[in-house]
C-alpha cells in the first residue's frame, strides 16, 4: 500500500513537472502591440558634415605629406550631430539629436524609433539637418500616408535615392 502511494505520488510529481514545463512554454499570452494600432518605424543613418570645414590642400602641401598619407583635403575627424524632426498631422511626434558614433565622434549618426499611430490617413512631415547651418533643414519631406491597423510603416532616409521615403 505504501509503495502504491509512493508510486502514485511519483506519477503526480512527474505530471506536475510536465505541466509546469508545458504551461510556461506557451502561456500566459503576451501582447506585444495593440492590434488596433499601426506601428511606425523610423530608421536612418547618415554621416553628418565635419565640425570644422575641410581644408583643400595645395599640390605643394600634398607633396610634403608622406606618400602613403597623401590626400587632397584635410578634415578634422569629429562630425556634427544629426537633427531629425517628424510631425504627424502638424504635431511634433519626434525630435531627435543623434550624436555621431565612434570614440572620435566620426562615425554615422543613427536614429531608430518605433511608435504607435491610430490607423487612417495622416500627414507626415519629416526634416533633417546634418550640416553646420543653424536654421532651416537640409532635407524636408511631406506626404499624406494611409496607415493600416496591425501593420508597419517604415520611414527611411537615403540621399542617394532622393532623400526620405515612407514604405
Amino acid at each position: 500500500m505504501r509503495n502504491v502511494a509512493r508510486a502514485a505520488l511519483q506519477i503526480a510529481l512527474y505530471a506536475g513537472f510536465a505541466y509546469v514545463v508545458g504551461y510556461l512554454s506557451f502561456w500566459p499570452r503576451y501582447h506585444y502591440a495593440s492590434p488596433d494600432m499601426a506601428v511606425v518605424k523610423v530608421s536612418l543613418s547618415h554621416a553628418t558634415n565635419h565640425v570644422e570645414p575641410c581644408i583643400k590642400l595645395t599640390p605643394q602641401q600634398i607633396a610634403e605629406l608622406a606618400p602613403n598619407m597623401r590626400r587632397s583635403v584635410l578634415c578634422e575627424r569629429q562630425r556634427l550631430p544629426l537633427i531629425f524632426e517628424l510631425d504627424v498631422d502638424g504635431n511634433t511626434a519626434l525630435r531627435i539629436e543623434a550624436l555621431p558614433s565612434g570614440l572620435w565622434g566620426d562615425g554615422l549618426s543613427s536614429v531608430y524609433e518605433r511608435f504607435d499611430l491610430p490607423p487612417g490617413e495622416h500627414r507626415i512631415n519629416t526634416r533633417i539637418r546634418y550640416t553646420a547651418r543653424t536654421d532651416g533643414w537640409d532635407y524636408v519631406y511631406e506626404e499624406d500616408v494611409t496607415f493600416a491597423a496591425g501593420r508597419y510603416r517604415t520611414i527611411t532616409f537615403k540621399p542617394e535615392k532622393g532623400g526620405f521615403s515612407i514604405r
Partner: protein
Amino acid sequence: MAFLKRIIRLLFARAETVFDWSFGQRNSPLANLGALGWYFFWIVAATGIYLYLFFDTGITDAYTSVEYITHDQWYAAGVMRSLHRYASDALVIVMFLHILREFSLDRLRGRRFFAWITGVPLIWFVYMCGITGYWLVWDKLAQYIAIATTEWFDTLPFFGEPIANNFLNSTTLGGRFFTLMVFMHIFAPLFMLFLMWLHIQRHARARVNPPRPLALGTAISLLVLSLVYPAVSQGPADLDVVPAALNLDWYYLAAYPILDFIPGGQLWLILVGGSIFLSLLPWIPPKKSTPPAVVNLDNCNGCARCAEDCPFSAITMEPRSDGAAYDTEAVVNESHCMSCGLCVGACPTATPFRRATAIVAGIELPDQPMSELRERTLEASARFGDGSRVLVYTCNTANAAALSDMGAQVISMPCVAMLPPAFIDFALSRGLADGVMLAGCAQGDCFYRLGDSWTKQRVAGERDPYLRKRVQRERLSLSWLPQGSARRRKQEFAEFAASLSKLPPRPPKRGSRNA
C-alpha cells in the same frame, strides 16, 4: 545573506521530504539537479542533430522546413522538435533550482568559488542557445525576437548603424543575419559544453548522469508532454505585419516584455550587474579559511585511498620524496583542499586502536587531528548517564546537536566521512557506547560531496577502509537526512535508542582513558 540562505534551505528541506519519500533519496530530482541539467542538455543536443537533418538554413525556406518537421513528420521529427523545446525549458528549471540549492547549502564560498563563477557564464550561454533557436523557426515569434533582440542590442554603443535595420521591413530582410543565427545556434552549445566541463573540473566523480529511474521518468514525462501538447510555430514571419499577440516561452523570453517598461540600457545594467553580483557571491561575506589537510610522510604508505576518496581532486599521488620504500606519496593541492577530512577517514593509519605510538594518521587536518578525535570519543563516553549510551558522530551541517537533549553524546566534525570506520569498532568493542549513530546529510545534500556515499560503502564493506565484520550492525545506525530535518533526526534517534534497549546490555569494559 545567511538568513536568505536559511529560508531557501528550509523550503528545499520541505520539498525534499516529499521527494525523498516518493523517489527515495538516491533518485530524488532535487538531489540530482546538476546531473539532470546535463541530461537535458544531451536530449536537446540529440534531438537538435536529428532536426538539423530536415531543417533548411535559408531564411526563405526555414519556416516551410519547420512546418514539414512539425506536421508531415509529426511522429518522429515533430516529436523531436517538441522534446527539443521542452528539454530546453526543463534545463532552465533545473539550472535555476541548482543555483538556488547550491546557494542555500552555502556550497559556493571559500575554495569552492570556481564551480560557482564558471556557472555564471553558463547561464548566458543557455539563453544564447535558446533565443537563437527560437529565431531559426522564422515564425511570428521569431520575428518578434529578431526585432526585440536587435533593438535591445542597438542600445549598446558598439554599432555604427542599427542592426535592427536588418528587420525593418520585408525588403530589408537578408539571409546573412539569419545564417549568423544558425551558426551561433550550433556553436554556442559546443562552447556551452566546454563550460559545463570546466564547471565540474574541481569535482572528483561529478555526477553528470541522473540515476536511471529518474532519467527514465523525466524522459517519459517530456515525451508524453510532447505528444499531448506538441510545439508548433505561430504563423510565418511577415516583417510588414505587427506580431501583436504571442505565445512566449517564458523560460527563455521573460526578459523581453521588460523592455516595454524600461530602456534597453537599463536591462543591460540589470543583467550584467546581476551577473557580476552573482559572481561575487562566493566572497559575500568572505569565508574563514580553514587549514588544508597535511600529509605525514612517516605514516603515509602511498596507498592512494585518500586521493581516491577526495571529492575535490585536491590530492595527487606523486613519486616518493623521502626515500621511503614506497613508490608514491600523497600530495595535497592547498588551493583545492576544502578541509573536509574525507581523506582522513580513508587513511588506513587513522586508527584509534594504536597504543605503541602516538596516533598520527598519514593524512590529517591540522586543527582536528585523529588523536583529538580519539580523546573526544573517550571523554564523551565518560559523560554518559543512565539510559541508552549512544555516541553520535555528526557533521557540522547535519543539525544533530539537538540529540544531546535526548541523552546522546554528540561528536561533531567537518564531515561524517572523516570518521575512520575503526572508530566505530573502537567505540563498540571497547564498550564506550551501546550504539553508534552516524548522523549525516542526505545524498546530494552533503556539504562536501560524497561523504554519505563513502561512509555507506565503508560500512557495507564495499570501500576501503572497511568496517570490520565483528562490529554488530544492529548497534550502528546510519541517519542521512536533508539539512534542517531536526525533527526527523530526533525521530530516527529515538527509534535507534529503542532498538538498542531491546538488545542485551553491554557492560562497559576497559573504558578507561587508556582504552
